[in-house]
Protein backbone atom coordinates (compact mmCIF):
# COMPACT_ATOMS: atom_id res chain seq x y z
CA UNK A 1 0.00 0.00 0.00
CA UNK A 2 1.33 3.45 -0.93
CA UNK A 3 2.30 5.65 1.97
CA UNK A 4 0.72 8.67 0.37
CA UNK A 5 -0.66 11.42 2.54
CA UNK A 6 -4.39 11.76 2.28
CA UNK A 7 -4.51 14.68 4.71
CA UNK A 8 -1.78 17.27 5.16
CA UNK A 9 -2.19 19.96 7.78
CA UNK A 10 0.34 22.66 8.62
CA UNK A 11 -0.07 25.41 11.24
CA UNK A 12 -3.83 25.26 10.87
CA UNK A 13 -5.62 27.83 13.01
CA UNK A 14 -9.23 28.88 13.54
CA UNK A 15 -10.26 31.87 15.58
CA UNK A 16 -13.69 33.13 16.55
CA UNK A 17 -13.15 36.73 17.57
CA UNK A 18 -10.40 36.54 20.19
CA UNK A 19 -11.13 32.94 21.03
CA UNK A 20 -8.73 30.51 19.36
CA UNK A 21 -10.55 27.23 18.85
CA UNK A 22 -7.81 25.51 16.84
CA UNK A 23 -4.30 26.65 17.62
CA UNK A 24 -1.59 26.05 15.04
CA UNK A 25 -1.96 22.30 14.52
CA UNK A 26 0.25 20.26 12.20
CA UNK A 27 -0.14 16.59 11.24
CA UNK A 28 -0.51 14.14 8.32
CA UNK A 29 -2.72 11.15 7.73
CA UNK A 30 -1.57 8.32 5.43
CA UNK A 31 -3.70 6.47 2.94
CA UNK A 32 -5.38 3.44 4.45
CA UNK A 33 -4.77 4.55 8.02
CA UNK A 34 -7.27 4.53 10.83
CA UNK A 35 -6.54 7.89 12.43
CA UNK A 36 -8.07 8.68 15.80
CA UNK A 37 -8.71 12.34 16.54
CA UNK A 38 -9.29 12.61 20.27
CA UNK A 39 -9.88 15.35 22.77
CA UNK A 40 -12.37 16.55 25.35
CA UNK A 41 -15.52 18.42 24.40
CA UNK A 42 -14.54 21.96 23.54
CA UNK A 43 -10.92 20.99 22.81
CA UNK A 44 -11.34 21.97 19.17
CA UNK A 45 -11.85 18.55 17.49
CA UNK A 46 -15.12 19.38 15.80
CA UNK A 47 -13.90 22.78 14.63
CA UNK A 48 -10.78 21.20 13.13
CA UNK A 49 -12.82 18.51 11.43
CA UNK A 50 -15.18 21.05 9.91
CA UNK A 51 -12.22 22.75 8.25
CA UNK A 52 -10.97 19.47 6.83
CA UNK A 53 -14.31 18.51 5.32
CA UNK A 54 -14.61 21.89 3.62
CA UNK A 55 -17.48 23.45 5.53
CA UNK A 56 -15.47 25.97 7.52
CA UNK A 57 -12.74 28.29 6.33
CA UNK A 58 -9.54 28.34 8.39
CA UNK A 59 -8.22 31.61 9.81
CA UNK A 60 -4.68 30.74 8.82
CA UNK A 61 -2.39 27.84 7.98
CA UNK A 62 -2.53 25.18 5.26
CA UNK A 63 -4.57 22.06 4.80
CA UNK A 64 -4.92 19.61 1.95
CA UNK A 65 -7.43 16.81 1.83
CA UNK A 66 -7.19 14.20 -0.98
CA UNK A 67 -4.83 16.62 -2.73
CA UNK A 68 -7.33 19.49 -2.72
CA UNK A 69 -6.69 22.74 -0.90
CA UNK A 70 -9.35 23.52 1.72
CA UNK A 71 -9.31 27.22 0.84
CA UNK A 72 -9.64 27.01 -2.92
CA UNK A 73 -11.32 23.65 -3.59
CA UNK A 74 -13.72 22.82 -0.76
CA UNK A 75 -16.31 21.58 -3.25
CA UNK A 76 -13.88 19.05 -4.71
CA UNK A 77 -13.09 17.85 -1.22
CA UNK A 78 -16.76 17.31 -0.46
CA UNK A 79 -17.16 15.23 -3.62
CA UNK A 80 -14.34 12.92 -2.64
CA UNK A 81 -14.99 12.25 1.00
CA UNK A 82 -17.59 10.49 3.08
CA UNK A 83 -18.98 11.98 6.30
CA UNK A 84 -21.05 10.66 9.15
CA UNK A 85 -21.77 12.21 12.52
CA UNK A 86 -23.48 11.14 15.69
CA UNK A 87 -25.94 14.00 15.61
CA UNK A 88 -27.19 13.38 12.14
CA UNK A 89 -26.64 10.62 9.66
CA UNK A 90 -29.88 9.75 7.87
CA UNK A 91 -33.34 11.24 7.47
CA UNK A 92 -35.69 9.70 10.02
CA UNK A 93 -38.82 10.31 7.97
CA UNK A 94 -37.50 8.62 4.83
CA UNK A 95 -37.30 4.84 4.37
CA UNK A 96 -33.99 2.98 4.17
CA UNK A 97 -34.31 2.64 0.42
CA UNK A 98 -35.26 6.27 -0.03
CA UNK A 99 -32.26 7.37 2.02
CA UNK A 100 -29.89 5.30 -0.08
CA UNK A 101 -31.43 6.60 -3.29
CA UNK A 102 -31.25 10.17 -2.10
CA UNK A 103 -27.63 10.09 -0.98
CA UNK A 104 -26.63 8.09 -4.01
CA UNK A 105 -28.17 10.78 -6.16
CA UNK A 106 -26.40 13.52 -4.24
CA UNK A 107 -23.08 11.77 -4.80
CA UNK A 108 -23.83 11.64 -8.51
CA UNK A 109 -24.19 7.88 -8.87
CA UNK A 110 -26.18 6.47 -11.76
CA UNK A 111 -29.51 4.77 -11.18
CA UNK A 112 -28.15 1.32 -11.96
CA UNK A 113 -25.23 1.70 -9.58
CA UNK A 114 -27.52 2.96 -6.86
CA UNK A 115 -29.74 -0.05 -7.30
CA UNK A 116 -26.78 -2.39 -7.17
CA UNK A 117 -25.27 -0.79 -4.08
CA UNK A 118 -28.64 -0.57 -2.41
CA UNK A 119 -29.14 -4.30 -2.68
CA UNK A 120 -25.61 -5.01 -1.56
CA UNK A 121 -25.89 -2.75 1.48
CA UNK A 122 -29.27 -4.11 2.55
CA UNK A 123 -28.09 -7.67 2.25
CA UNK A 124 -24.83 -7.09 4.06
CA UNK A 125 -26.51 -5.49 7.05
CA UNK A 126 -29.45 -7.92 6.97
CA UNK A 127 -32.02 -5.17 6.58
CA UNK A 128 -34.17 -6.96 3.99
CA UNK A 129 -37.27 -7.01 6.14
CA UNK A 130 -37.13 -3.37 7.10
CA UNK A 131 -35.92 -1.90 3.81
CA UNK A 132 -39.19 -0.04 3.31
CA UNK A 133 -39.56 1.18 6.87
CA UNK A 134 -38.82 4.69 8.00
CA UNK A 135 -35.31 5.00 9.37
CA UNK A 136 -36.68 6.70 12.46
CA UNK A 137 -38.21 3.42 13.58
CA UNK A 138 -34.88 1.56 13.63
CA UNK A 139 -32.80 1.02 16.75
CA UNK A 140 -29.84 3.37 17.11
CA UNK A 141 -27.22 0.72 16.38
CA UNK A 142 -28.74 -0.22 13.02
CA UNK A 143 -29.04 3.44 12.06
CA UNK A 144 -25.37 4.06 12.75
CA UNK A 145 -24.23 1.04 10.78
CA UNK A 146 -26.44 2.04 7.88
CA UNK A 147 -25.24 5.62 7.96
CA UNK A 148 -21.67 4.41 7.78
CA UNK A 149 -22.38 2.31 4.71
CA UNK A 150 -24.29 5.12 3.03
CA UNK A 151 -21.35 7.48 3.55
CA UNK A 152 -19.26 4.98 1.58
CA UNK A 153 -21.67 4.62 -1.35
CA UNK A 154 -19.50 6.62 -3.70
CA UNK A 155 -16.23 4.88 -2.73
CA UNK A 156 -14.52 7.93 -1.26
CA UNK A 157 -10.81 7.84 -0.54
CA UNK A 158 -11.38 8.94 3.02
CA UNK A 159 -14.30 8.87 5.42
CA UNK A 160 -14.73 11.25 8.34
CA UNK A 161 -16.59 9.89 11.36
CA UNK A 162 -17.66 12.29 14.11
CA UNK A 163 -18.37 10.37 17.33
CA UNK A 164 -20.10 7.57 15.44
CA UNK A 165 -20.66 5.19 18.34
CA UNK A 166 -22.12 7.50 20.96
CA UNK A 167 -24.74 5.78 23.12
CA UNK A 168 -24.66 2.56 21.12
CA UNK A 169 -24.65 -0.80 22.98
CA UNK A 170 -21.26 -2.53 23.38
CA UNK A 171 -21.90 -5.31 20.89
CA UNK A 172 -23.00 -2.98 18.12
CA UNK A 173 -20.07 -0.71 18.86
CA UNK A 174 -17.69 -3.56 18.13
CA UNK A 175 -19.54 -4.61 15.01
CA UNK A 176 -19.22 -1.03 13.87
CA UNK A 177 -15.47 -1.10 14.44
CA UNK A 178 -15.20 -4.35 12.55
CA UNK A 179 -16.81 -2.51 9.66
CA UNK A 180 -14.23 0.24 10.08
CA UNK A 181 -11.40 -2.31 10.01
CA UNK A 182 -12.77 -3.84 6.83
CA UNK A 183 -13.06 -0.45 5.18
CA UNK A 184 -9.49 0.44 6.09
CA UNK A 185 -8.30 -2.94 4.89
CA UNK A 186 -9.84 -2.12 1.50
CA UNK A 187 -7.75 1.03 1.25
CA UNK A 188 -10.13 3.72 2.52
CA UNK A 189 -8.65 6.06 5.08
CA UNK A 190 -10.72 6.47 8.23
CA UNK A 191 -10.57 9.70 10.23
CA UNK A 192 -12.54 9.18 13.41
CA UNK A 193 -13.23 11.21 16.54
CA UNK A 194 -14.47 9.50 19.64
CA UNK A 195 -14.59 9.99 23.38
CA UNK A 196 -14.51 6.26 24.13
CA UNK A 197 -10.87 5.91 25.03
CA UNK A 198 -10.82 2.16 24.48
CA UNK A 199 -11.76 2.79 20.87
CA UNK A 200 -8.59 4.84 20.56
CA UNK A 201 -6.74 1.55 20.80
CA UNK A 202 -8.22 0.37 17.51
CA UNK A 203 -6.55 3.20 15.65
CA UNK A 204 -3.22 3.03 13.86
CA UNK A 205 -2.28 6.44 15.16
CA UNK A 206 -3.97 8.81 17.54
CA UNK A 207 -3.77 12.56 18.17
CA UNK A 208 -5.03 14.17 21.36
CA UNK A 209 -6.14 17.78 21.33
CA UNK A 210 -6.15 19.90 24.47
CA UNK A 211 -7.33 23.52 24.33
CA UNK A 212 -6.91 23.78 20.60
CA UNK A 213 -3.40 22.32 20.43
CA UNK A 214 -2.25 18.81 19.58
CA UNK A 215 -0.49 17.62 22.73
CA UNK A 216 0.20 14.06 21.62
CA UNK A 217 0.44 12.25 18.31
CA UNK A 218 1.62 8.65 17.91
CA UNK A 219 0.54 5.04 17.89
CA UNK A 220 -1.44 4.00 20.97
CA UNK A 221 1.35 1.66 21.99
CA UNK A 222 4.03 4.32 21.92
CA UNK A 223 1.84 6.80 23.77
CA UNK A 224 1.25 4.31 26.55
CA UNK A 225 4.99 3.71 26.82
CA UNK A 226 5.68 7.41 26.84
CA UNK A 227 3.32 8.10 29.72
CA UNK A 228 4.00 4.82 31.42
CA UNK A 229 0.36 3.78 31.66
CA UNK A 230 -1.65 0.71 30.76
CA UNK A 231 -4.42 2.16 28.63
CA UNK A 232 -5.38 5.18 26.56
CA UNK A 233 -7.77 6.46 29.20
CA UNK A 234 -4.84 6.98 31.55
CA UNK A 235 -2.83 8.63 28.75
CA UNK A 236 -5.62 11.13 28.43
CA UNK A 237 -5.87 11.70 32.18
CA UNK A 238 -2.15 12.37 32.42
CA UNK A 239 -2.23 14.79 29.50
CA UNK A 240 -5.30 16.65 30.68
CA UNK A 241 -4.16 16.94 34.27
CA UNK A 242 -1.10 18.70 32.96
Amino acid at each position, binding site marked *: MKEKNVIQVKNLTKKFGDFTAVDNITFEVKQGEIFGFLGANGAGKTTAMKMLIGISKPTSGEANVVDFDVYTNPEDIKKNIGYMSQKFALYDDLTIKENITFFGGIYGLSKSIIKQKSEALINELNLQEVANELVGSLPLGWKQKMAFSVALLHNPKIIFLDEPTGGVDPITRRQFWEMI*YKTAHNGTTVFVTTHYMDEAEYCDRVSIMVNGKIEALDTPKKLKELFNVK*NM*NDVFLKLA*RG
Partner: protein
Amino acid sequence: MSISIKHISKSFKDVTALKDISFNVNEGELFGLIGPDGAGKTTLFRILTTLLIADEGTATVANYDVVKNYKDIRNHVGYMPGRFSLYQDLTVEENLTFFATIFGTTIEENYDLIKDIYVQIEPFKNRRAGDLSGGMKQKLALSCALIHKPKVLFLDEPTTGVDPVSRKEFWEMLKRLQQKGITILVSTPYMDEAALCDRIALIQDGEILQIDTPEEIVKHYPKIIYDVTASNMYELIISLNKYQHNHSVYPFGEFVHYTDERDDFNPEDLLKYLEGKGLKNIVIQPTKTTIEDTFMELAK
Protein backbone atom coordinates in the same frame (compact mmCIF):
# COMPACT_ATOMS: atom_id res chain seq x y z
CA MET B 1 -35.41 -0.10 51.56
CA SER B 2 -35.06 3.20 49.84
CA ILE B 3 -36.32 2.29 46.40
CA SER B 4 -38.53 -0.66 45.63
CA ILE B 5 -39.53 -1.61 42.10
CA LYS B 6 -41.98 -4.45 41.44
CA HIS B 7 -42.84 -5.77 38.00
CA ILE B 8 -42.77 -2.41 36.24
CA SER B 9 -43.62 -2.44 32.53
CA LYS B 10 -44.03 0.49 30.19
CA SER B 11 -44.69 0.79 26.46
CA PHE B 12 -44.91 3.74 24.12
CA LYS B 13 -47.05 3.19 21.01
CA ASP B 14 -45.49 -0.02 19.66
CA VAL B 15 -42.20 0.13 21.50
CA THR B 16 -41.80 -1.70 24.79
CA ALA B 17 -39.48 0.42 26.88
CA LEU B 18 -39.53 -1.65 30.08
CA LYS B 19 -40.43 -5.31 30.54
CA ASP B 20 -41.27 -6.56 33.99
CA ILE B 21 -38.53 -4.81 35.94
CA SER B 22 -38.06 -5.61 39.59
CA PHE B 23 -35.27 -4.73 42.03
CA ASN B 24 -34.55 -2.85 45.24
CA VAL B 25 -32.06 -0.21 46.24
CA ASN B 26 -31.00 -0.09 49.88
CA GLU B 27 -30.69 3.04 51.92
CA GLY B 28 -27.33 4.73 51.48
CA GLU B 29 -26.39 2.60 48.47
CA LEU B 30 -24.67 3.86 45.36
CA PHE B 31 -26.56 1.88 42.75
CA GLY B 32 -25.74 1.88 39.06
CA LEU B 33 -28.15 1.26 36.18
CA ILE B 34 -25.87 0.25 33.34
CA GLY B 35 -26.95 0.03 29.72
CA PRO B 36 -26.76 1.69 26.29
CA ASP B 37 -29.17 4.19 24.72
CA GLY B 38 -32.63 2.80 24.33
CA ALA B 39 -32.21 0.32 27.18
CA GLY B 40 -34.98 1.95 29.19
CA LYS B 41 -32.91 3.79 31.80
CA THR B 42 -34.49 7.19 31.32
CA THR B 43 -37.99 5.71 31.22
CA LEU B 44 -37.37 3.94 34.53
CA PHE B 45 -36.02 7.12 36.07
CA ARG B 46 -39.05 9.06 34.93
CA ILE B 47 -41.36 6.52 36.48
CA LEU B 48 -39.47 6.63 39.78
CA THR B 49 -39.45 10.42 39.86
CA THR B 50 -43.22 10.37 39.17
CA LEU B 51 -43.00 11.96 35.73
CA LEU B 52 -44.50 8.95 33.97
CA ILE B 53 -46.97 6.32 35.07
CA ALA B 54 -46.08 2.69 34.42
CA ASP B 55 -48.48 0.48 32.51
CA GLU B 56 -48.03 -2.29 35.04
CA GLY B 57 -46.37 -2.80 38.39
CA THR B 58 -45.70 -0.66 41.45
CA ALA B 59 -42.78 1.25 42.89
CA THR B 60 -41.96 3.15 46.03
CA VAL B 61 -39.28 5.72 46.73
CA ALA B 62 -38.41 6.45 50.38
CA ASN B 63 -41.56 4.52 51.24
CA TYR B 64 -43.82 6.76 49.14
CA ASP B 65 -45.80 5.22 46.32
CA VAL B 66 -44.82 6.76 42.98
CA VAL B 67 -48.41 7.19 41.87
CA LYS B 68 -50.44 7.79 45.00
CA ASN B 69 -47.89 9.85 46.92
CA TYR B 70 -46.20 11.57 44.04
CA LYS B 71 -46.27 14.97 45.72
CA ASP B 72 -44.26 13.66 48.68
CA ILE B 73 -41.68 12.18 46.37
CA ARG B 74 -41.42 15.44 44.45
CA ASN B 75 -40.72 17.26 47.69
CA HIS B 76 -38.00 14.92 48.82
CA VAL B 77 -35.90 13.70 45.93
CA GLY B 78 -33.09 15.29 43.98
CA TYR B 79 -33.27 14.77 40.22
CA MET B 80 -30.72 15.44 37.54
CA PRO B 81 -32.27 14.57 34.18
CA GLY B 82 -30.02 13.86 31.21
CA ARG B 83 -28.31 16.59 29.25
CA PHE B 84 -27.84 19.30 31.93
CA SER B 85 -31.28 20.73 32.41
CA LEU B 86 -30.37 24.02 33.97
CA TYR B 87 -31.43 27.55 33.10
CA GLN B 88 -28.76 28.50 30.58
CA ASP B 89 -29.45 32.21 30.86
CA LEU B 90 -29.21 32.34 34.65
CA THR B 91 -25.86 32.52 36.41
CA VAL B 92 -24.44 29.75 38.54
CA GLU B 93 -25.50 31.49 41.72
CA GLU B 94 -28.97 32.36 40.39
CA ASN B 95 -29.62 28.77 39.40
CA LEU B 96 -28.60 27.51 42.82
CA THR B 97 -30.66 30.13 44.63
CA PHE B 98 -33.70 29.31 42.49
CA PHE B 99 -33.60 25.61 43.28
CA ALA B 100 -32.96 26.26 46.93
CA THR B 101 -35.94 28.62 47.12
CA ILE B 102 -38.48 26.43 45.41
CA PHE B 103 -37.59 23.66 47.83
CA GLY B 104 -38.07 25.99 50.73
CA THR B 105 -34.47 26.24 51.83
CA THR B 106 -31.43 28.44 51.33
CA ILE B 107 -27.94 27.86 49.98
CA GLU B 108 -26.46 28.45 53.44
CA GLU B 109 -28.62 25.84 55.15
CA ASN B 110 -27.21 22.84 53.35
CA TYR B 111 -23.95 24.32 52.14
CA ASP B 112 -21.83 21.66 53.79
CA LEU B 113 -23.46 19.08 51.54
CA ILE B 114 -22.44 20.72 48.30
CA LYS B 115 -19.26 22.41 49.47
CA ASP B 116 -16.84 19.95 47.89
CA ILE B 117 -18.56 20.29 44.56
CA TYR B 118 -19.42 23.96 44.67
CA VAL B 119 -15.94 25.22 45.49
CA GLN B 120 -14.85 24.08 42.05
CA ILE B 121 -17.39 26.28 40.30
CA GLU B 122 -17.60 29.08 42.85
CA PRO B 123 -15.03 31.22 40.99
CA PHE B 124 -17.53 31.27 38.13
CA LYS B 125 -20.60 32.01 40.19
CA ASN B 126 -21.53 35.05 38.15
CA ARG B 127 -21.13 33.33 34.83
CA ARG B 128 -24.21 32.22 32.93
CA ALA B 129 -24.79 28.48 33.04
CA GLY B 130 -24.87 28.34 29.25
CA ASP B 131 -21.27 29.57 29.10
CA LEU B 132 -19.85 26.85 31.34
CA SER B 133 -17.90 23.86 30.09
CA GLY B 134 -19.52 20.41 30.13
CA GLY B 135 -17.75 19.36 33.31
CA MET B 136 -18.73 22.51 35.18
CA LYS B 137 -22.36 22.34 34.05
CA GLN B 138 -22.46 18.86 35.45
CA LYS B 139 -21.13 19.99 38.81
CA LEU B 140 -23.65 22.81 38.94
CA ALA B 141 -26.51 20.45 38.08
CA LEU B 142 -25.41 18.13 40.85
CA SER B 143 -25.28 21.00 43.34
CA CYS B 144 -28.77 22.11 42.36
CA ALA B 145 -30.09 18.60 42.80
CA LEU B 146 -28.54 18.34 46.27
CA ILE B 147 -29.22 21.79 47.69
CA HIS B 148 -32.38 20.73 49.51
CA LYS B 149 -30.76 17.68 51.13
CA PRO B 150 -32.81 14.99 49.39
CA LYS B 151 -33.08 11.51 50.80
CA VAL B 152 -32.70 9.96 47.38
CA LEU B 153 -30.72 11.28 44.44
CA PHE B 154 -31.56 10.30 40.86
CA LEU B 155 -28.85 11.02 38.31
CA ASP B 156 -29.73 10.16 34.71
CA GLU B 157 -26.57 9.78 32.62
CA PRO B 158 -24.73 12.56 34.44
CA THR B 159 -21.41 11.82 32.75
CA THR B 160 -22.45 11.37 29.14
CA GLY B 161 -20.54 13.57 26.76
CA VAL B 162 -18.19 14.81 29.45
CA ASP B 163 -14.41 14.42 29.24
CA PRO B 164 -12.73 11.53 31.13
CA VAL B 165 -11.14 13.82 33.70
CA SER B 166 -14.45 15.35 34.74
CA ARG B 167 -16.05 11.94 34.73
CA LYS B 168 -13.49 10.65 37.18
CA GLU B 169 -13.90 13.66 39.46
CA PHE B 170 -17.67 13.34 39.34
CA TRP B 171 -17.62 9.76 40.60
CA GLU B 172 -15.21 10.73 43.36
CA MET B 173 -17.79 13.33 44.42
CA LEU B 174 -20.54 10.73 44.39
CA LYS B 175 -18.56 8.44 46.65
CA ARG B 176 -18.10 11.25 49.16
CA LEU B 177 -21.82 12.06 49.00
CA GLN B 178 -22.68 8.49 49.70
CA GLN B 179 -20.85 8.75 52.99
CA LYS B 180 -23.33 11.40 54.05
CA GLY B 181 -26.12 8.88 53.90
CA ILE B 182 -27.80 9.78 50.63
CA THR B 183 -29.14 6.96 48.48
CA ILE B 184 -27.93 7.46 44.94
CA LEU B 185 -29.31 5.85 41.80
CA VAL B 186 -27.16 6.59 38.77
CA SER B 187 -27.58 5.52 35.18
CA THR B 188 -24.68 5.38 32.75
CA PRO B 189 -23.70 3.77 29.46
CA TYR B 190 -20.03 3.62 30.55
CA MET B 191 -19.20 0.14 31.75
CA ASP B 192 -16.03 1.22 33.52
CA GLU B 193 -18.06 3.43 35.83
CA ALA B 194 -20.07 0.39 36.89
CA ALA B 195 -17.13 -0.88 38.90
CA LEU B 196 -17.41 2.15 41.18
CA CYS B 197 -20.94 1.30 42.37
CA ASP B 198 -22.00 -0.77 45.37
CA ARG B 199 -24.38 -2.77 43.24
CA ILE B 200 -25.38 -2.56 39.61
CA ALA B 201 -28.22 -3.64 37.34
CA LEU B 202 -27.34 -4.39 33.74
CA ILE B 203 -30.16 -3.37 31.45
CA GLN B 204 -30.70 -3.71 27.70
CA ASP B 205 -33.85 -3.42 25.57
CA GLY B 206 -36.03 -2.89 28.59
CA GLU B 207 -34.92 -6.00 30.41
CA ILE B 208 -32.66 -6.49 33.41
CA LEU B 209 -29.85 -8.87 32.50
CA GLN B 210 -28.43 -9.18 35.99
CA ILE B 211 -28.23 -7.45 39.34
CA ASP B 212 -25.40 -7.83 41.82
CA THR B 213 -22.22 -6.24 43.09
CA PRO B 214 -19.70 -5.60 40.32
CA GLU B 215 -17.38 -8.28 41.73
CA GLU B 216 -20.06 -10.94 41.82
CA ILE B 217 -21.32 -10.17 38.36
CA VAL B 218 -17.86 -10.61 36.97
CA LYS B 219 -17.29 -13.78 38.99
CA HIS B 220 -20.29 -15.42 37.41
CA TYR B 221 -19.00 -15.09 33.91
CA PRO B 222 -19.03 -18.70 32.73
CA LYS B 223 -15.79 -18.84 30.75
CA ILE B 224 -12.17 -17.83 30.81
CA ILE B 225 -11.47 -14.88 28.59
CA TYR B 226 -8.24 -14.73 26.61
CA ASP B 227 -6.50 -11.62 25.40
CA VAL B 228 -5.36 -12.34 21.86
CA THR B 229 -3.22 -10.04 19.78
CA ALA B 230 -1.32 -10.23 16.50
CA SER B 231 0.45 -7.85 14.17
CA ASN B 232 -2.63 -7.36 11.98
CA MET B 233 -5.82 -6.75 13.95
CA TYR B 234 -8.15 -7.01 11.03
CA GLU B 235 -6.81 -10.36 9.83
CA LEU B 236 -6.84 -11.60 13.41
CA ILE B 237 -10.51 -10.78 13.90
CA ILE B 238 -11.47 -12.43 10.62
CA SER B 239 -9.50 -15.54 11.43
CA LEU B 240 -10.96 -15.82 14.93
CA ASN B 241 -14.46 -15.38 13.55
CA LYS B 242 -13.83 -18.20 11.13
CA TYR B 243 -12.49 -20.50 13.84
CA GLN B 244 -15.09 -23.18 14.32
CA HIS B 245 -14.83 -23.45 18.08
CA ASN B 246 -15.25 -19.84 18.97
CA HIS B 247 -17.87 -18.75 21.46
CA SER B 248 -17.27 -15.01 21.37
CA VAL B 249 -14.85 -12.74 19.57
CA TYR B 250 -14.85 -9.10 20.64
CA PRO B 251 -12.26 -6.42 19.98
CA PHE B 252 -11.19 -4.81 23.21
CA GLY B 253 -8.70 -2.08 22.50
CA GLU B 254 -5.32 -3.52 21.61
CA PHE B 255 -6.50 -7.07 22.30
CA VAL B 256 -9.33 -9.27 21.17
CA HIS B 257 -11.29 -10.96 23.93
CA TYR B 258 -11.73 -14.54 22.87
CA THR B 259 -13.74 -17.29 24.50
CA ASP B 260 -13.95 -20.83 23.29
CA GLU B 261 -17.06 -23.00 23.39
CA ARG B 262 -15.12 -25.97 24.69
CA ASP B 263 -14.56 -26.46 28.42
CA ASP B 264 -11.22 -28.12 27.83
CA PHE B 265 -9.92 -25.47 25.52
CA ASN B 266 -6.17 -25.49 24.98
CA PRO B 267 -4.74 -22.18 23.76
CA GLU B 268 -2.05 -24.04 21.83
CA ASP B 269 -4.67 -25.22 19.36
CA LEU B 270 -5.67 -21.66 18.66
CA LEU B 271 -2.05 -20.58 18.31
CA LYS B 272 -1.38 -23.25 15.70
CA TYR B 273 -4.53 -22.31 13.80
CA LEU B 274 -3.64 -18.63 13.74
CA GLU B 275 -0.07 -19.30 12.67
CA GLY B 276 -1.52 -21.40 9.92
CA LYS B 277 -3.44 -18.34 8.79
CA GLY B 278 -0.21 -16.45 8.37
CA LEU B 279 -0.48 -14.21 11.39
CA LYS B 280 2.63 -12.98 13.16
CA ASN B 281 3.49 -11.89 16.72
CA ILE B 282 0.62 -13.85 18.18
CA VAL B 283 0.04 -13.60 21.92
CA ILE B 284 -2.68 -15.52 23.76
CA GLN B 285 -3.10 -15.13 27.50
CA PRO B 286 -5.94 -15.30 30.00
CA THR B 287 -7.25 -11.97 31.24
CA LYS B 288 -9.51 -10.50 33.91
CA THR B 289 -13.17 -10.45 33.07
CA THR B 290 -14.73 -7.00 32.97
CA ILE B 291 -18.30 -5.86 33.37
CA GLU B 292 -18.43 -5.14 29.67
CA ASP B 293 -17.59 -8.75 28.83
CA THR B 294 -20.35 -9.89 31.13
CA PHE B 295 -22.80 -7.43 29.68
CA MET B 296 -22.21 -8.57 26.15
CA GLU B 297 -22.45 -12.21 27.10
CA LEU B 298 -25.78 -11.61 28.83
CA ALA B 299 -27.10 -9.44 26.03
CA LYS B 300 -26.31 -11.92 23.27
